[in-house]
């Protein structure tokens, strides 16, 4: 058994190691080392917890068994999961953090003596407040992440679910959560504790159902943030520095990512959270659709255009992930490079279903990360490029965002694809993107539409090169 002071110092060390783990992600070279720091920090935290309790008798073996079961499941998932399923995986992991926070809070509520928080029915006020906040946020994280997971997995429709009185209802529930926490703290009643958990699960569910599929980058980042605040709440309850530091890190990390994602769509955070975007716009744009002429071509035309180009910019989007076209794309690029054509990739911040989604898929297909550029880095290059190859992206290339103040996406930063000499647009049909608006790019003189599955088209082009 080690002293409380010594273990506190070790928890501080593991907190610092977690900071270094995130710091490492500032560049791919240092990132692997950063991950190692993270693992080391976790090892220290777990070891110190065992040592500080020092009770290696009866329960210890069960702790190990459950640890190993969870670890085996986690390791299995980590090795099996395809890279395209990363958004679902992250949503699933968030739900587990949330649920773990809820379970720890329940456990501490039922047996506060073990945590040094007082006795059942007479828990220290401060601890009870921290505990109930941690539990409520954890429960919201859990049910919200489950909905996000179901939407990403396609089990639940990605379209927003809205009903009348949704926002007032949510507001009432949120206020009742605060009231419940207040009464729980004044009465210490277990019934109120269970009720609080139930209501928190409910609001997590209600908060996420009105948010549409393409807003998932914001939702996932937001839930990431929540899972951090839940951990911090529990950290305060347990008076554990490692947990407080980590909770704050994760909380602010998720908040920053949400901010970046919202900015990438030029929408306020509240606009995304209140949901329902895109549902109303679809009908209005339906009338003037499919009337203007488009030029469509085949793999042969596309190959011809690219063969005669000297530089090509690839614009991948969620459609590439759906079609699993990243490997085929990379093969096409290899062939282009063999012909001496310069190729780079342009990634919009909200391409895909989570922050950095496209980068991971390209990395999986062995695309070197120094050929992949963010919007600000590459946007000026479109004017000098010969061909833009848009694969599975749509709204993020729509010039309407720059020209039409009436458009719902007006002001959103977009890739200046239309400035290229010619644009190749791989898409299954002319249907509008998520925002429900027509893309002017389809009808431009220099645009060639390639109507096909992204993967098949890319393979066909490679054959024709």
């Amino acid at each position, binding site marked *: 058994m080690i002293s409380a002071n010594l273990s506190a110092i070790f*928890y501080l060390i593991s*907190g610092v190691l*977690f900071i270094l783990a995130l710091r490492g*992600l*500032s*560049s*791919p070279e240092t*990132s692997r080392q950063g*991950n190692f720091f*993270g693992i080391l920090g*976790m090892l220290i935290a777990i070891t110190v*917890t*065992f040592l500080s*309790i020092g*009770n290696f008798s009866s329960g*210890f073996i069960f*702790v190990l068994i*459950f640890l190993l079961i*969870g*670890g085996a*499941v*986690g390791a299995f*998932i*980590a090795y099996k999961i395809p*890279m395209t399923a*990363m958004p679902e995986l*992250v949503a699933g*992991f*968030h739900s*587990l*953090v949330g649920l*773990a926070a809820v*379970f720890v809070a*329940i*456990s501490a509520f039922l*047996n506060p003596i073990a*945590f040094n928080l007082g006795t059942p029915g007479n828990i220290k006020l401060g601890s009870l407040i921290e505990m109930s906040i941690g539990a409520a946020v954890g429960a919201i994280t859990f049910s919200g992440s489950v909905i996000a997971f179901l939407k990403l997995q396609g089990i639940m429709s990605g379209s927003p679910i809205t009903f009348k009185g949704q926002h007032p209802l949510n507001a009432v529930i949120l206020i009742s959560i605060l009231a419940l926490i207040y009464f729980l703290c004044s009465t210490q009643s277990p019934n109120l504790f269970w009720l609080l958990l139930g209501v928190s699960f409910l609001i997590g569910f209600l908060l996420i159902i009105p948010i549409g599929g393409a807003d998932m980058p914001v939702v996932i980042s937001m839930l*990431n943030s929540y*899972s*951090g605040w839940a*951990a911090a709440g*529990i*950290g305060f309850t347990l008076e554990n520095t490692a947990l407080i530091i*980590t909770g*704050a890190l994760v909380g*602010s*990390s*998720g908040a920053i990512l949400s901010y*970046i994602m919202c900015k990438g769509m030029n929408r306020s955070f509240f606009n995304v959270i209140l949901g329902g975007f895109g549902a109303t716009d679809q009908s209005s744009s339906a009338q003037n659709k499919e009337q203007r002429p488009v030029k469509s071509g085949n793999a042969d035309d596309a190959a011809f255009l690219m063969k005669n180009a000297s530089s090509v910019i690839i614009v991948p989007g969620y459609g590439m992930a759906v079609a699993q076209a990243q490997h085929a794309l990379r093969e096409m690029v290899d062939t282009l490079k063999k012909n001496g054509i310069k190729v780079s990739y342009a990634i919009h911040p909200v391409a895909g279903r*989570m*922050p*950095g989604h496209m*980068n*991971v898929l390209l*990395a*999986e297909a*062995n695309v*070197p*990360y120094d050929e992949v550029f*963010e919007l600000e880095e590459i946007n000026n290059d479109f004017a000098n490029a010969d061909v833009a190859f848009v694969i599975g992206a749509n709204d993020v290339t729509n010039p309407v965002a720059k020209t039409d103040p009436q458009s719902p996406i007006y002001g959103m930063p977009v890739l200046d694809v239309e400035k290229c000499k010619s644009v190749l647009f791989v898409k299954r049909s002319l249907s509008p993107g998520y925002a429900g608006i027509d893309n002017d790019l389809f009808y431009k003189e220099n645009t060639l539409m390639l109507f096909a599955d992204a993967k098949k088209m890319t393979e066909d082009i490679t054959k024709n090169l």
Partner: protein
Amino acid sequence: MEIDPFIFRLSIFILSIFVGYYVVWSVTPSLHTPLMSVTNAISSVIIVGAIIAGLAGNSESVFNTSTIFGFLAISLAAINIFGGFLVTQRMLAMYKKKKKDKK
């Protein structure tokens, strides 16, 4: 009058938010997905609470409602810890620089 230890924890919390703010802004956008999976893994340090809960039973009753929730939380957090760190490692291993052309 002595300062409540809560204030010290609050100070750590607030300062960590600022540290988090600056550290996360310096993360390169191409690594945002690994960032999410690694934050998942480290927030599962909540397992320390679960271990305390799980070990709270005495020799007569290893299992009671409180410890059972503790054990379950251990498993959930362990899935995240192993899953999170390993999947991050798997992703990071894929980020490669351009090979120098040997022509």
